[in-house]
């Protein structure tokens, strides 16, 4: 039981870190440019497809990853120049609609290029085994790598945002973009950079799950909604909030699915507990979100100056 809990907690952490990688870009883009990007999830999908393709071509996952990341960055920047740059001064509804259209295009485009059937990416040999944790418990190396890579990325992002000049501009931009622009900063270039960075982070998340999930059209849509839950719980625009909320959502979702039914069984008869558990488990994080928003309408770490 303790082992199972530990295992699920690790799975939850790994899931949460993936969510963070996607949510970080989304919340940066929202916080700084005030842009709701529904198409952020498809960037995650594109990252997974690029990794699958480059891995198949080069025969090596790491080479594939190394090629996929800059491609995702360039792809994000091209999209920003073509479409998103037109949307900054529009209201949220128009942003929602335009990026909704973009989802349709990219999902369909992926289907046309790669077909509707899921692709699979083999776990690289060197990362395939599992390592012993405590007692009889073992954990797959690849999932540990995801956790480590995600934590390193979070650390890198924190250094970038909190300790560098670009980060200072980002923080200033998130608080008051017009003021930063008035001070002579090239806000257009800053926006492009943030967008490219966000696209690359989402692409990186997609690349990391490619070997453990199936790569298929529409895979970005489900994670997008979870990411929204994350940034709304964390407080829109806050990287720290996104990190805390992503881990929270990942753990609550994963642990809840396993232990919800077990807890319920001690409260009610087995058949009813099974049905209630099945019903409640996928709703847990949405309930969490509703509770958080009920108590704190602008999330756990609201942006300063925001209402």
């Amino acid at each position, binding site marked *: 039981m303790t082992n199972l809990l530990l295992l699920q907690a690790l799975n939850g952490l790994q899931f949460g870190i993936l969510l963070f990688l996607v949510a970080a870009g989304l919340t940066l883009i929202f916080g700084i440019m005030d842009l709701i990007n529904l198409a952020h999830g498809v960037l995650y999908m594109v990252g997974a497809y690029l990794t699958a393709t480059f891995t198949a071509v080069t025969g090596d996952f790491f080479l594939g990853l190394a090629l996929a990341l800059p491609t995702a960055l360039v792809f994000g920047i091209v999209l920003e120049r073509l479409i998103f740059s037109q949307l900054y001064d529009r209201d949220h509804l128009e942003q929602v609609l335009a990026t909704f259209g973009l989802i349709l295009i990219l999902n369909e485009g992926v289907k046309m290029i790669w077909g509707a059937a899921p692709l699979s990416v083999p776990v690289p040999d060197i990362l395939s085994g599992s390592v012993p944790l405590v007692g009889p418990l073992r954990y797959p190396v690849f999932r540990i790598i995801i956790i480590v890579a995600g934590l390193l990325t979070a650390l890198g992002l924190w250094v970038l945002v909190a300790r560098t000049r670009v980060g200072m501009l980002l923080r200033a931009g998130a608080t008051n973009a017009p003021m930063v622009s008035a001070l002579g900063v090239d806000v257009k270039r800053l926006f492009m950079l943030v967008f490219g960075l966000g696209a690359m982070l989402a692409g990186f998340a997609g690349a990391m799950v490619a070997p453990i999930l199936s790569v298929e059209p529409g895979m970005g849509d489900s994670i997008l909604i979870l990411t929204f839950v994350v940034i709304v719980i964390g407080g829109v625009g806050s990287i720290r909030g996104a990190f805390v909320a992503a881990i929270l959502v990942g753990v609550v979702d994963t642990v809840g699915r396993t232990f919800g039914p077990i807890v319920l069984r001690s409260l009610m008869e087995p058949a009813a507990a099974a049905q209630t558990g099945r019903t409640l488990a996928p709703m847990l994080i*949405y309930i969490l979100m509703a509770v958080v928003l009920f108590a704190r309408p602008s999330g756990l770490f609201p942006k300063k100056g925001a209402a």
Partner: protein
Amino acid sequence: MSQSAVSDPAVDPAVAADARQPRLASRGALVAALILFAIFAALPPAATAAGDPFLVVTATRIVIYAIAALSLDLVLGYGAMVSFGHAAFLGIGAYSVAILASLGIGDVVLQAVVAVAVSALFALLTGAISLRTKGVYFIMITLAFGQMAFFFFVSLSAYGGDDGVTLYSRSTLLGTSALESDVGLYYTALVVLVAAFFLLRTVVASRFGRVLRGTRDNAVRMQAIGFAPFPYQLTAYVIAGALCGIAGVLLANQTEFVSPAYMTWQRSGELIVMVVLGGMGTLTGAIAGAVGYLALENVLSSMWEHWHLPFGALIILLVLYTRGGIAGLVGRIFGARP
């Protein structure tokens, strides 16, 4: 900030035209709606004459979605509340039919009453929480509630879970089998649409509707003159949810199949596109938007397997280069806007 930006009169020609020439604009919209209804009414005989009875099935779908779009327009167009979980009500209505039918209650009137009650309750609970938030948070929390409803029905294994449930037959209408024929169902849906249109027209023109629109245009000013927006917005949210529940009842009867796919967030997105495409804040526009959206979907999907591609591109172009949707366009052509 989006709350006021959505319907800034300086940006939104529909609102601007409405403010400048309220009587004329509303009379023009009424005439347009009546013409639309007349075309709808004449469609089944025309389809028979043209030897294309399937047209009625397509048209039924259009009429049902027009009801859903109308209901969304009340909150989106008149209340500036960007609700991204509206399809949940469609699903609640549809499941009311499936669940009641399996319990032996097969009359559409009873089913609609239950659908309205459950939809209204769901809207009341989720609306009360959602309306504590504003702008982007409102968009996302309604999205989350929509997903909650989606996952609730996905997990309902007694009713097919993910796969949904096929209905044995269509509902009866006050004991008659009027809905069994496609034409009977079509006219029933059309009657509901026309009734919904005139109901919402009355609601929007009433004192309640004026407060709602006032809040949309300037919430601070409305508060300053003594109106608390919350009860008005919540009431509109509940009315819209209940009406969309009825659309769900009709949709279940049309497809004779009910599944959680009715309430995916993409479906909610499509409803928003319909309303915006037609022109927010005009009831006729919402109907026109549903017609335009579904007609386009039908044409494109019959032409190309990958029709989502041009469809998505078209949505982007519409957002970037038109303002006020079909209603705005028609208004501009007929000179309602200087």
